[in-house]
């Protein structure tokens, strides 16, 4: 398959987006699954479909139920209520060793007494694969993860990054229908993590396996996933492509959880088909915005806008529908971009991010300067919850 799942955000007709296809048969289906540990509800009446060849990310703060969800897929936990289907069959009664699902553990869980070769061969020796083919398969896995030189080493004789690749090779060796990755890159430093993310995507594409990854790192989820599920308190808050989650968050929680965002609360006015105005402060010019949501006149709503969608300038930009005057309180210089913290007359703090396309010395405004913030009527999102 030539089409990369990562291009799904392009919304082209050829894009990989089985979740939009009503005829597509999901690989995994959670049907009204609830999991309780004593009185604690880890998963709360959750329903979700995951499709073949997807790179599906479960994202959320710790304790949101994402690990429990994954452990139910692996078979280490059973749901208190509901069904989990894999390829249309209920897998709840199937023990972990009989499921066509493999898992890469957060701690890697490499067998310390076995060599890299034997670690990778462990699952194959317990499958119905003929003995003479096991060697070839292990060699193939070693090549895929560039570990050929380390086959005879024990896990404690290789580095953290290599261990991570052994864990991946071992979980992929049996060519599972579904690979589960539990915070797979948590133990790596940032640079190695970035490299490994691309390696993971590469391997996912080469093998065509469905990946479900658990992570609390939103950047990682955005980078690797075809779809991201944001979870909180055992519920799916929003499931969408990375771009969808970022550009069209469905709630203040999601908008706030993914990336930086300005949230302005106010009352709806002049509600027309697809447009409205938001009154957020006495005497301030109302914010003009577009929305698909049904909003009634006077309803309390929130307006969410990303810092990079707001321009900072000495004069208001005529081509943008919204303007607000404010004073620069702080500037965070990050090299390629700068984030300006601007206080509006109403006391509302706004962050705006600008690319540093000019040298620093030639910048027109600095601390304590009065500036104009400008944004278009489509730049932000109206949130009703």
């Amino acid at each position, binding site marked *: 398959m030539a089409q990369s799942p990562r291009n799904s955000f392009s919304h082209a007709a050829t894009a990989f987006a089985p979740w939009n296809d009503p005829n597509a048969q999901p690989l995994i289906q959670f049907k009204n699954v609830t999991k309780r540990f004593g009185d604690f509800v880890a998963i709360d009446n959750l329903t979700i479909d995951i499709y073949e060849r997807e790179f599906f990310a479960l994202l959320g703060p710790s304790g949101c139920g994402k690990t429990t969800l994954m452990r139910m897929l*692996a*078979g*280490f936990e059973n749901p208190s209520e509901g069904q989990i289907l894999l390829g249309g069959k209920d897998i709840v009664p199937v*023990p*972990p*060793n*009989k499921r066509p*699902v*493999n*898992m890469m*553990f*957060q*701690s890697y*869980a*490499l*067998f*310390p*007494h076995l060599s890299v070769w034997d670690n990778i061969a*462990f*699952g194959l020796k*317990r*499958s119905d694969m003929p003995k003479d083919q096991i060697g070839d398969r292990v060699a193939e896995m070693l090549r895929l993860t560039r570990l050929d030189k380390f086959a005879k*080493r*024990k896990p*404690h*004789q*290789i*580095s*953290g*990054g*290599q261990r991570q690749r052994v864990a991946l090779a*071992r*979980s992929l060796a*049996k060519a599972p229908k579904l690979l589960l990755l539990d915070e797979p890159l948590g133990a790596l430093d940032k640079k190695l993590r970035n490299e490994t993310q691309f390696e993971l995507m590469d391997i996912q594409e080469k093998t065509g396996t469905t990946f479900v990854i658990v992570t609390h790192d939103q950047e990682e989820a955005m980078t690797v996933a075809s779809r991201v599920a944001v979870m909180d308190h055992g519920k799916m808050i929003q499931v969408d492509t990375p771009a969808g989650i970022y550009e069209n968050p469905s709630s203040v929680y999601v908008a706030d959880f993914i990336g930086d965002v300005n949230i302005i609360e106010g009352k709806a006015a002049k509600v027309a088909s697809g447009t409205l105005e938001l009154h957020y402060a006495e005497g301030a010019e109302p914010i003009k915005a577009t929305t698909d949501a049904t909003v009634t006149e006077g309803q309390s709503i929130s307006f969410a806008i990303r810092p990079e969608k707001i321009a900072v300038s000495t004069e208001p930009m005529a081509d943008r529908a919204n303007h607000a005057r404010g004073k620069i309180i702080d500037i965070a210089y990050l090299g390629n971009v700068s984030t300006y913290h601007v206080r509006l007359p109403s006391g509302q703090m706004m962050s705006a991010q600008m690319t540093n396309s000019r040298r620093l010395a030639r910048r027109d405004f600095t601390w304590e300067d009065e500036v104009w913030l400008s944004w278009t009527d489509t730049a932000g999102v109206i949130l009703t919850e």
Partner: protein
Amino acid sequence: MRRFSWFNITSLTLGFAFLYIPMIILVIYSFNGGRLVTVWAGFSTKWYGELLSNEDFLNAAWVTIRVALATATLATILGTLAAYVMIRGGRFFGRTLFSGMVVAPLVMPDVILGLSLLLLFKVMFSSAGMMTVILAHTTFTMCYVSVVVSSRLVSFDKSLEEAALDLGATPFDAFKSVTLPNIAPAVVSGWLLAFTLSLDDLVIASFTTGPGATTLPIKIFSAVRLGVSPEINALSTIMIGIVTIGVISFSLINKRQVAQRLRDEKTAEASA
């Protein structure tokens, strides 16, 4: 080098003297040429020779070793299984009670344990013998094994077993090919502990033994009641020697493994 204060030197000397002077005296007197234990009559190894020709002692030694081997093996199997269930079994009804009961024999007075086993065996078997001693020793050494093994299991990453299951191993296969190799040092320690405990137990063995199953401690104890003979000194010296060699070689092997591991980790970091 740190210098020791006088106080430290004194307390160290006193402590070690307290521990080892009795044994040193015993070892010295085992090379005594005379028949009287308390009077030095020149160096000689003749009591060792006498010992080797003493059928009674040799038989008792042989019984003791067979009992200790069987006990250690049985206790290790049962103790390891008990530890595994306790640590990995999750929450089941009566778990706290059960884990308390497994370690209870640790603090139970030997006399009571011996007496209760004697009563039980009287009902169960027509005659006491080596088998009853083995069963009795297994009962009280198994809890030591389970304590040693569970402390290792607690620190053993559970996800290794889950990984084995995930890769298609049955629960028994996962235990055999992943858990067991990794807790092996604790299992071996448990075996050695059970072996030593069985080797020198007098009280429980006295209660549960029968004709033809006199263990060495029983033999020594009854011989000493007729007066300490230099032969017993020689025998005890041999036992001290065996135990010392065992302990030293075990710790040397351990030390080498740790050193090897540290070297491996260094090369791993260097090659990364």
